[in-house]
């Protein structure tokens, strides 16, 4: 059996990195399987870039072990560098060179020679949609095109593993979509570890998510599974026509309803509360409105996403918590105050 194809592409065990007395990484352990796209999330200073720099052999670790394709990043640095295509944050490029010239230089440096070099340069130029800019001086390119040049550079030597540090930072929505599609198209042949702040991007591209916080892995799972962790309670908004105090009292007495906050709006009353999905709270609210003869014009549960999971894990904030009076802009004075039933 071929052990090289069986083992994970990236294996990190107890990785530690200290800058003086500050610990940037503290015993980080994770694995990335071959062909997987894994998103590395975390707030600023969580240790994402440090992790990627260690894996790309730019920085040493203070402790622990990291392997890419079975090669140790500390002991077999050259072998690892051949297996990895690394796109650093802010995509540093030689701005005085032309795109094709730069890619030829980088390809040659990565050991791609002769006809293969020409063919690879043509291929990555097509892949990254750079044909129209191949003769342009890099310094004159927009941020989006520079990002593509950086990505093309990563792909030149057909690495098994791509390490991308915030590849869509500073791009406009169209450029983000293009880069995202490109990354997705690379997945079957490459293992991709991508660091980003754009959570929606991770939900779309990545098969698995690693959330780093204060140098530790706070969570590791598929985006769906992580979102599923937070599905016990939902954040429900209802708009009912009736007296605010009666509505608040009735909702507060309903089983499964927690922290209702009523904001009167003329004849109507907007109620925001937390409800347990298992207890079919929305159905109960609907039945209550029917019984009391209150007209109902909205009854919605907010869909939880990765952003909620991220906030909960890294800040301890539950974004499903109803907004309390004073947390945001005050309602119109003519509409009256809020009535809450905890």
């Amino acid at each position: 059996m071929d052990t090289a194809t069986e083992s994970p592409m990236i294996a990190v065990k107890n990785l530690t990195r200290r800058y003086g007395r500050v610990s940037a990484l503290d015993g980080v352990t994770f694995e990335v399987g071959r062909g997987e796209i894994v998103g590395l999330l975390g707030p600023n200073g969580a240790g994402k870039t440090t992790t990627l720099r260690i894996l790309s052999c730019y920085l040493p670790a203070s402790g622990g072990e990291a392997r890419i394709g079975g090669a140790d990043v500390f002991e077999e640095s050259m072998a690892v560098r051949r297996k990895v295509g690394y796109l650093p944050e802010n995509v540093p490029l030689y701005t005085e060179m032309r795109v094709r010239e730069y890619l030829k230089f980088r390809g040659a440096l990565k050991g791609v020679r002769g006809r293969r070099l020409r063919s690879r340069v043509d291929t990555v130029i097509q892949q990254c949609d750079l044909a129209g800019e191949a003769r342009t001086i890099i310094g004159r390119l927009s941020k989006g095109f520079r990002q593509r040049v950086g990505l093309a550079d990563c792909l030149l030597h057909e690495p098994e593993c791509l390490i991308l540090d915030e590849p869509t930072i500073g791009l406009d929505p169209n450029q983000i979509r293009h880069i995202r599609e490109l990354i997705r198209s690379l997945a079957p042949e490459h293992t991709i570890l991508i660091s980003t702040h754009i959570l929606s991007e991770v939900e779309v591209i990545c098969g698995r998510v690693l959330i780093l916080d204060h140098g530790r892995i706070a969570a590791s799972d598929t985006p769906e599974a992580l979102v599923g962790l937070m599905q016990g309670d939902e954040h429900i908004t209802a708009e009912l026509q009736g007296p605010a105090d009666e509505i608040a009292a009735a909702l507060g007495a309903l089983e499964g309803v927690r922290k209702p906050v009523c904001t009167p709006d003329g004849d109507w009353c907007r109620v925001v509360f937390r409800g347990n999905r298992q207890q079919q709270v929305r159905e109960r609210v609907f039945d209550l409105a029917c019984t009391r003869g209150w007209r109902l014009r909205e009854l919605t549960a907010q869909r939880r996403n990765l952003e909620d999971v991220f906030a909960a894990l890294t800040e301890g904030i539950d974004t499903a918590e109803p907004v309390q009076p004073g947390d945001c802009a005050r309602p119109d004075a003519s509409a009256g105050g809020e009535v809450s039933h905890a």
Partner: protein
Amino acid sequence: MRSFLILLRRELSAVFLSPVAYVTMALFTSAASWTFLATVKAQTGSTVYPEQLFFVSVLIWMPFLITVICMRLFAEEKRSGTIETLMTTAVGETAVVLAKYAGALVFGWVTIAPSIGALYILAAMSPGIDGVDGYAVAGGCAILALVSICCTAVGVLVSLLTRNQIVAAICCFWAIFAPFMVQPFMRAVPLFRQATIERFSLERHVTLFVSGTLSLQPAVLYLSITVLMLFSAVRVLESRRWL
């Protein structure tokens, strides 16, 4: 070796495609030629060889030239972040340091070369000068080559120690200028014997080489410093992977 050649080619194209290179060449040639002509005028009637005056004039401007060439070498790569893409490619630190060094050295020599024309132009225009001694010029070129090899290696090391080009320029200038002050310093301090002073005197080395005496001692001195500086530069670049 292949990586070295690829990097060297990029270094040379980056230097020679920049207008700064040609401005540097023009300024250096003008400054060295003007200094030479001024010294010749000042020394009219003396028995000093014009070849010696010429090579001293070029050497005076050497710290400025090497500083301008070396200040950007690694400092610029660090500032722009390209050092990260470079050092995460399968290229050894030795190849990177040697390619930067060789690129800087070639540019330095190409900048100095036109100045030698000033010597021949002066000889052709002045009836008082019989001609230029080819052997003296060869000896002068040899000492210029040795000093530039050594100073460029110092410049490469200094450039590696900072990401700020201004800091690199100041440190580089003083590191290269210091050897020019060795002789006056040793003379001022009565601890050193005359023989020791002469062994480290740049002025004495120039006189020796221009007079046709190709001494091994200065060659060994400058080449030893060069090797030490380049070895240190490789270690400094590697230190990123241990610290």
